[in-house]
């Protein structure tokens, strides 16, 4: 009898608790709607109260950057509210700071629609579109990084080398968004192809899924996003800092640079034989940090490139080289080696890697007199 009770009572109790929660959820269901405007234009006059601004934007086909999938961790979904601001929560306070909050900035994933709202969305984000692609091939670059090549289905994406896309993952009980930099140059997109370097994260929902994709499997993504690009920039010297898988966008930038160089040199040899054009004098320097030689994928390619091309300088740094690596190059952290390196203050600096690495490099560079406008960070 007591065994029966021990079984029956908990089951009945849990059922009662579920019922209670259903009733509470019904009572607490948001009722009412509000107007949702983007840059002053009415997009939807009946958005349910309580919808997050990120969701409201998605419904209208506006895909804001949201690398953390709306968990309030990345701070990328920041936007300005012209009207309808509500009290900011802890995540918004941490990411935005008092001054920005005062100006009306909020995180779209954390702010909910509570009244008529008007948000300001920059033009380049309005151009972000949704795409579909199918996996064409997968190549292992290191123990935990795979290069996935996709073929875009339908319209091509117009992007600049260094930019990233957001992949949408959905299963029966999970939903997630993750950001990945495109590692192929934009010229590949003309053929409808692009590649991503995907690092398998321990317990990572999306990276595990991407690593398990079979040829022909389809993905949904939006893009392009990101400011970390050298396109349209006139700087003569470009210094790239990549930490770990942060090398992906740099691969795109370097390949585009090489393509441009070869175009220019072809033109030059056609027009004025022997004389090099001014345009080809762009110099590229790559600092690439990884744990050990295994994780420093594409190392041989960069080595070869630097030996062939005088305008490309390659500085690999290993933080924990293994004995079998036989490493004789730089060790430690990238910033430790930057201190003694002379840097031209007019250089363009692009950084992609862990935030702590980026901050240290930025500090050092500002001490060297590089102005903040010339530094672009894409924190992983």
């Amino acid at each position, binding site marked *: 009898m007591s065994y029966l009770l*021990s079984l029956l009572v*908990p089951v009945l109790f849990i059922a009662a*608790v579920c019922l*209670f929660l259903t009733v509470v*959820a019904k009572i*607490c269901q948001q009722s009412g709607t509000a107007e949702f405007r983007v840059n002053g234009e009415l997009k939807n006059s009946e958005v349910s109260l309580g919808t997050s601004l990120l969701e409201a934007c998605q419904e209208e086909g506006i895909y804001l950057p949201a690398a953390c999938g709306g968990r309030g961790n990345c701070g990328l979904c920041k936007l300005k509210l012209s009207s309808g601001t*509500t009290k900011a*929560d*802890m995540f918004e*306070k941490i990411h935005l700071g008092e001054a920005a909050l005062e100006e009306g900035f909020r995180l779209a994933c954390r702010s909910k629609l509570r009244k008529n709202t008007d948000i300001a969305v920059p033009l380049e984000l309005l151009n972000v579109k949704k795409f579909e692609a199918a996996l064409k091939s997968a190549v292992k670059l290191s123990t935990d990084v795979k290069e996935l090549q996709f073929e875009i289905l339908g319209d091509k994406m117009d992007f600049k080398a260094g930019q990233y896309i957001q992949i949408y993952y959905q299963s029966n009980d999970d939903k997630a968004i993750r950001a990945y930099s495109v590692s192929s140059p934009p010229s590949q997109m003309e053929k409808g192809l692009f590649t991503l370097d995907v690092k398998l994260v321990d317990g990572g929902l999306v990276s595990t899924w991407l690593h398990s994709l079979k040829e022909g499997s389809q993905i949904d993504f939006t893009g392009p996003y990101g400011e970390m690009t050298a396109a349209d920039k006139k700087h003569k010297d470009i210094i790239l800092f990549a930490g770990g898988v942060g090398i992906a966008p740099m691969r795109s930038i370097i390949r585009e640079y090489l393509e441009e160089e070869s175009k220019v040199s072809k033109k030059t040899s056609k027009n004025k034989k022997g004389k090099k054009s001014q345009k080809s004098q762009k110099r590229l320097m790559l600092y690439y940090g990884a744990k050990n030689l295994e994780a420093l994928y594409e190392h041989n390619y960069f080595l070869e490139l630097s030996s062939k091309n005088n305008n490309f300088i390659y500085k690999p740094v290993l933080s924990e080289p293994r004995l079998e690596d036989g490493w004789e190059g730089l060790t430690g952290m990238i910033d430790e080696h930057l201190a003694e390196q002379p840097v031209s203050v007019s250089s363009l600096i692009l950084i992609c890697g862990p935030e702590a690495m980026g901050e240290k490099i930025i500090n050092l560079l500002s001490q060297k007199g590089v102005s903040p406008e010339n530094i672009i960070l894409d924190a992983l």
Partner: protein
Amino acid sequence: MTLANAISIIFASVISENILLFYFLGTCPLISLSRDPEAAFNMGVAVTFVTTFSAAANFVLDRYLLGPLGLQHLRLLFYIVVIAALTQALEMFLDRFLPAVYVSFGIFMPLLAVNCAILGVSIFASLREYSFAETSLFAFGSGVGWLLVVSAMAAIKRRIPKENIPPSLGETGMSMVIAAMMAMSFWAVSQVFKGVALS
């Protein structure tokens, strides 16, 4: 419950037998929570809120359901369900009816469902066979005690980056050292009061 009894429960739960520093329950947020004192305070308020409500609900459950049916050995299971349901219900309620309160500390509610301090308070209260009033007071005091320690810790942790701490210790190690010092100072305060009471 006499006034002296009430004061001693409050004093013990906030200071001398602080749930965090004396029983080492609910330490994860102490170590991992950011250095933002405001966030720490808000989370403390949420913990106090949930601890008090859940201990009261668990008291009723223990006294009027588990006790009569002789199912006290299933206490843990029932308490966990009550805490999880309560945090969920409170979160929904605050989100709907008190959005301003929700953004301050409602966002911590899902984290609290797995906070061992909250479960610990309910269990201690029933093991000590407290009455309803004593249970509620004890739970409230424990919540306030937790709030006090976490807020103090956040305020102290803010200074860590400015100090020259041993690199091998790091911020986590330093947090443990700070917690140990706090535990000693809380104990010292309780001893002072004990001395005053005896004299």
